[in-house]
């Protein structure tokens, strides 16, 4: 289809309590810049149920307009309902481009909507620019991050990109002055073809929110066994961090897959990533190199993890971690 406007849309995904997920707010940062270059408006789109907080946040972080679809059928994410709502909005307003967070739900919504509109999608983008012809230039990792691909969608509109959480930084909030537009789009119950029957919490009921974590302390083969994660958990506790793991530690059965960072685990972008006893296989690096600051602790001075580390300690993690934990405790006492 053809774009009716130069507007750039950012889809703001919401948490269970109706607040905005970080990735949505983060995308407003490049969104503002791109919309400015293209001479269009930055429009945030919030689909959910009871989402006033997310609408307010989108407005404070720079959206010129916020389109809101609020209804009980959007309380829990289903790709059937969300794709119907988003497609209807696109057909009505004709945006030039859409950014969608590359979260588990966003990675369902983006390809379905792109497929329905027969337009191009760049998945899991970590960089966004503008081509000579004015199309968006999407930069995304392929082959587990071993290579970066630069894509464009020169003809079809809207151009759609899913954007990795943590790839962009939140801007500074300002006065909320966006125009709020409410749209009523209802979805019949029979049009939602999947249903959640139950949610089974992992043993211990621990929620492992790696993707939203500000600090991650992760362990790999070097921790040597399940109990090797104890000093990692202790450090994580004093830092308010989430515990991550490399594939080697997960495959050895020392910790559950929910903790895995990397190509076959979670892609993370915390402010601080502390890698303990992780050698840094390319599949692991693919999952954590967009972290702001990386600390590596490893016995092997040649471990590839040191190539991506801002601070590297060559040493025994079982000696280093307890001291580091104590120092932090002392400083905070």
């Amino acid at each position, binding site marked *: 289809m053809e774009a009716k406007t130069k507007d750039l849309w950012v889809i703001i995904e919401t948490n269970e309590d109706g607040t905005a997920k970080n990735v949505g707010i983060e995308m407003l940062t490049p969104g503002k810049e791109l919309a400015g270059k293209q001479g269009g408006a930055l429009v945030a789109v919030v689909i959910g149920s009871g989402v006033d907080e997310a609408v307010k946040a989108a407005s404070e972080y720079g959206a010129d307009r916020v389109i809101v679809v609020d209804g009980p059928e959007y309380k829990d994410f289903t790709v059937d309902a969300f794709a119907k709502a988003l497609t209807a909005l696109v057909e009505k307003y004709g945006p030039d481009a859409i950014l969608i967070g590359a979260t588990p739900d966003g990675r369902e919504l983006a390809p379905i909507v792109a497929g329905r509109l027969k337009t191009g999608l760049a998945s899991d983008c970590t960089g966004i620019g503008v081509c000579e012809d004015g199309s968006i230039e999407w930069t995304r990792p392929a082959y587990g991050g071993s290579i970066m691909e630069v894509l*464009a969608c020169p003809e079809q509109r809207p151009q759609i990109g899913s954007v990795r959480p943590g790839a962009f930084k939140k801007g500074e909030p300002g006065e909320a002055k966006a125009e709020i537009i409410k749209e009523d789009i209802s979805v019949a119950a029979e049009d939602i073809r999947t249903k959640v029957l139950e949610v089974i919490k992992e043993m211990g009921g621990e929620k492992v929110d790696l993707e939203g974590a500000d600090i991650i302390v992760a362990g790999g083969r070097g921790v040597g066994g399940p109990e090797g994660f104890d000093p990692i958990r202790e450090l994580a506790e004093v830092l308010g961090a989430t515990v991550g793991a490399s594939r080697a530690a997960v495959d050895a059965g020392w910790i559950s897959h929910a903790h895995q960072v990397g190509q076959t685990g979670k892609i993370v972008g915390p402010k601080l990533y502390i890698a303990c006893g992780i050698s840094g296989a390319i599949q692991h690096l693919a999952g954590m190199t967009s972290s702001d600051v990386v600390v590596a602790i490893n016995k092997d001075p040649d471990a590839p993890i040191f190539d991506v580390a801002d601070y590297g*300690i060559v040493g025994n993690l079982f000696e280093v971690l307890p001291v580091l934990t104590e120092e932090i405790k002392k400083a905070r006492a």
Partner: protein
Amino acid sequence: MNILVCIKQVPDPTELKADPAKNTLNTDEVPKIINPFDSYALEAAARIKDKDPETKIVIVTIGTAGVEKALKEGLGIAADQAYFVSDEAFADSDSLATAYILSCAVKKIEETEGKFNAIFCGKQATDGDSAQVGPQLAEYLGYPLVTYGLEAFDEGDTLKINKEIDGGIEVIAAQTPCVVTFTKPSWDPRYPTIKRKMAANRAQIPTLTGADFAGLDASAIGAAGSPTKVIKTFVPQRSKSGIKIQEESDEESAKKLFALLSDARVI
């Protein structure tokens, strides 16, 4: 139950090396394997068949000569029948065009194999990493979609899927026919057996081309039918000139790290 599993052959991700001078990867030089996520999809189909031996598992791949090797491997592991989809006109198809070609193949294969109750894919391929083909196949076929599947259970009119979510599992009922994409479960996918491998080597694998697909929209395939264009690739610059800390003792190293992190206001 009648299940189609879509598989793709990819370069073994553990063997890949980047050539920073040419900005390419050594994809041609490394061994090829079934995309790991597709092997989890095949395993999920095999587990359904374990419970109900009447289950039929058909596998399909798109590509150029040579990639049928992955189909033989799939037959050796669990599949009953395989189809190879190949046509020069399909070259340079992006995810959307590939999903369209696959949707045509599904309809053609169903003429022989009967209607599929479920189509299983990997959540993404470890080469392109786009995670689009499965969802867009669902869209082209008009089927419901479930992603991040770990295991699936045949419940008659619905398929029950254990989906991986943060901190646990969501149990989802999807109307059939449906498309499910799979991620890594906590168990290892089964290996081929010798007996199955030998049978697979003798298996006849039909090749389907564009000419076999009635009403194929030539404007929706190949480079011309692909909305996305690759402008360039480059090898990411990972090396950071980080600070190496190696004091007299690990204790001193830890204290120095703490001081540096505090000074930089990281903690």
